[in-house]
């Protein structure tokens, strides 16, 4: 008699993928936990960060030469805007709550008890 499961074209793949996934996860994790793997990953990551630092520096010099605002200038502006947002939030918080969207809906009673 034919095995009905054998007719499913994905049946074989399903089992194979499950086994492959376990194998790769187990062995991959084992390898990735080794100091050599961490060293290699962080060496690549560190090189990318150094490259970015050099690029930041070069861009800052170009922007300064062109008399354009640098990233630091834009960040400083952003920080000032954030400070204004914070001050606005403080002012907003002092406004009566009834003026906000909260008051437009009737507040539910806070008397609920858990089911017995």
């Amino acid at each position: 008699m034919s095995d009905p499961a054998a007719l499913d074209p994905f049946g074989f793949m399903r089992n194979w993928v499950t086994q492959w996934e376990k194998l790769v996860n187990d062995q991959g994790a084992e390898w990735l936990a080794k100091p050599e793997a961490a060293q290699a990953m962080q060496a690549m990551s560190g090189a990318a960060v150094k490259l970015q630092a050099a690029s930041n520096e070069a861009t800052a010099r170009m922007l300064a030469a062109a008399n354009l605002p640098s990233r630091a200038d834009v960040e400083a502006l952003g920080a000032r805007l954030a400070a204004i947002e914070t001050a606005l939030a403080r002012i907003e918080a002092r406004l009566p709550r009834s003026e906000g969207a909260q008051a437009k809906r009737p507040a539910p009673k806070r008397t609920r008890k858990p089911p017995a």
Partner: protein
Amino acid sequence: MTAEASVLDTARADFERVLQRNLKGLGYLASPAPVPGASAKDVIVSRGPWRLYHYHPLVDEVYRVPVLLVMATTNRGYVFDLAPGQSLVEFLLLRGYDVFMVDWEAPRPEDRHLGLKDYVEDFVGGSIEEVAAVTGERDVSLVGYCMGGVLSVMWSALNADRGPKNLAVFTTPVDFKAMTMFQAWSDPRYFDVDQLVDTVGQAPAEMLLTAFDMLRPAGRAAANFRLVDNLWNDEFVKSHRMFDRWSNDMLPLAGEYFRETTKELTWKNGLIEGTLKIGGRPVDLARITCPFLHVTAEHDHIVTTAASDPLIELVGSEDKEQVVLKGGHVSLIAGPNAVKRMWPKLDSWLGAKSV
């Protein structure tokens, strides 16, 4: 039924699935991902990376004590509110809770200076103040997930005199030395966190996503195969797309916050060793005395039970409980496993303590 008929029926069903796979596969490629977020809400705070939402109640009578969910800082909070019927927020609203959530946005360059003190005192603590202002209730139940749980635990330890009334956390790491993969990758001999933060200003989302992916190197490829295999199944596809979108939608972390969590938690294991100070004040988990629930996942590959288990011993509460449920780091809080296991557990624990 004869064996021949059974084989024919199976073959017919398989053929039907192959057909549906192909037809729906085309539809999958052509359609946008479902938009997550099911429940109506007001945005109470939107400042820097900090968001505070208040969800519209779905019943006329709610528990006296509001619930404040605190999302993990690397991910967006819509995992708690994916779609109707798949939303912890909706579940809690229907069970009669007044629900708020601390959610996160990507920090902007000028947010690079935000550190643990900002996240714990200003964002979690500030949210608690806002919840009190909106509801008129001083009591609140804090419910944190992963690093959101860590922030909730830290705030509770630093402010034991002011509450919270109840503290529930899910898959919350406390022994960072037990997170062996993250320990290996952030080995201070090879990982220069100062160089990264000083240069980039934040921990990039791509770097964090790669780290999470590497915990299960074959996970993404296997998930894609399972998607193709189940293309005929609309529910599977919808669920896959929502979770896939969420897990890829990672947030960068503010520079100082990442530097401090790396040095104080990952390297010094400050919560276990008792060396962590926030704003100059020691974080002593024994000072937490409110009712405490810790839910962990049996198959959590991100926050292993070895990393989360010691929390229950460290907390000073007399009324405390740890529950280990089936599932993984995400399936514990969302999806069919969560609907069946964690959500009812949270409701049964919290309801009696919310009056």
